[in-house]
C-alpha cells in the first residue's frame, strides 16, 4: 500500500461519503455544503489520475463558479418552508430500488473487462509527473502534441483529431447561454413602472 493508494482511498471515501450525505440530507443549505466538499474531493481524484489541468479547472469552474451560483440560488429562495422539504417514503423506496439496480449494473460493468483491472504503473515518475496543461491547450487549438507519432493517419484519412471546432462551439454556446440566463432571471420592474405611470 503506497501513498498513491492511501490518497486514493482518502479522496474516494470523501467523495462518496459527501455524495451520500447530499442524498440523505433534507436541509438544502447543508446539501450545498456537502456538494462543495464532494466536488473538491473529486478534484483531488483528478490530480491523482494525472489530469492536473482538469483538476484545477474542476476547482475553478465547478467549485468556484457553478456552486457559488447554486449557493446564490439557495440564498435567494431560502425561506423556512423550502429549507427542509421531506420526501414521501414511497419515493424513497422506488428510488432505492432503481438506484440499487443501476449501481449493481455499473459495478458489474466496471469489473467485467480485465484490462481495466490492470494495476497502475505509478512507480514510473516520468509518467506521473508529466504536466498536461500544454497538451490540453494545444489539443483545444487543434494540434495534438500527444498524437504526433500518428501523423501519418492525418495524411491518409485527412481527419485532424483536434478540438478547435468543438471549442468554438462551446464558447459561443456559453456566451448565448449566459445572455439567455441573464434575460430570464432579470427583475421585471419596468412593466410595473409603466402601469403606475398610466
Amino acid at each position, binding site marked *: 500500500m503506497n501513498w498513491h493508494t492511501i490518497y486514493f482511498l482518502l479522496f474516494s471515501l470523501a467523495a462518496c461519503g459527501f455524495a451520500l450525505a447530499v*442524498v440523505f440530507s433534507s436541509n438544502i443549505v447543508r446539501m450545498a455544503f456537502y456538494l462543495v466538499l464532494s466536488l473538491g474531493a473529486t478534484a483531488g481524484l483528478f490530480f491523482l489520475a494525472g489530469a492536473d489541468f482538469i483538476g484545477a479547472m474542476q476547482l475553478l469552474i465547478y467549485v468556484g463558479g457553478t456552486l457559488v*451560483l447554486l449557493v446564490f440560488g439557495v440564498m435567494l429562495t431560502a425561506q423556512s418552508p423550502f429549507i427542509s422539504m421531506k420526501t414521501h417514503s414511497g419515493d424513497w423506496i422506488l428510488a432505492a430500488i432503481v438506484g*440499487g439496480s443501476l449501481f449493481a449494473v455499473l459495478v458489474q*460493468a*466496471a469489473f467485467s473487462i480485465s484490462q*481495466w483491472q490492470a494495476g497502475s504503473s505509478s512507480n514510473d515518475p516520468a509518467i506521473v509527473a508529466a504536466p498536461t496543461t500544454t497538451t490540453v491547450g494545444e*489539443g483545444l487549438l487543434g494540434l495534438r502534441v500527444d498524437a504526433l507519432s500518428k501523423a501519418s493517419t492525418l495524411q491518409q484519412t485527412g481527419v485532424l483529431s483536434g478540438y478547435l471546432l468543438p471549442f468554438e462551439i*462551446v464558447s459561443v454556446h456559453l456566451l448565448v447561454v449566459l445572455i439567455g440566463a441573464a434575460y*430570464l*432571471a432579470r427583475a421585471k420592474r419596468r412593466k410595473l413602472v409603466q402601469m403606475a405611470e398610466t
Partner: protein
Amino acid sequence: MNLLAEPIGVSHYLVVGAVLFVCGAVCMATKRNALGVLMGIELVLNGANLNFIAFGSRVLHADGQASIGLDGQLIALFVIVLAAAEAAVALAITLNFYNNHSTVDVDRADELKG
C-alpha cells in the same frame, strides 16, 4: 474482486464514478426542492467526468499507454463548461418560477400537464 489488495486501476475509479452517478440519480428522483434536483445533476455529470478521466489517464494503465489518451481530459473539460452553462440556465428558470409561483417545490410545477 479484492479491491484493496491490487494497485489502483481504472476499475476503482469506475466504482467511485458509479457511486457518484447513482447518488446523483437518486438525488434527482427524490428531492422536492428544485435546487436539490440541480445538485443531483451536478453529481451525475461529475461521476461521468471521473470515468472520462480514468479512461484517459496514463497513470492508471499498466503499460503506460492510455486507451483514449488526451481525449478523455478534453471531453471532461467540455463537460465542465456545459455543466456551468446548464447550471446558469436552470438557476434562472428556478428563480423565474420562484418569482411567479412563490415556491421551489417541483411537485407544484404541473401547469403543463395534459
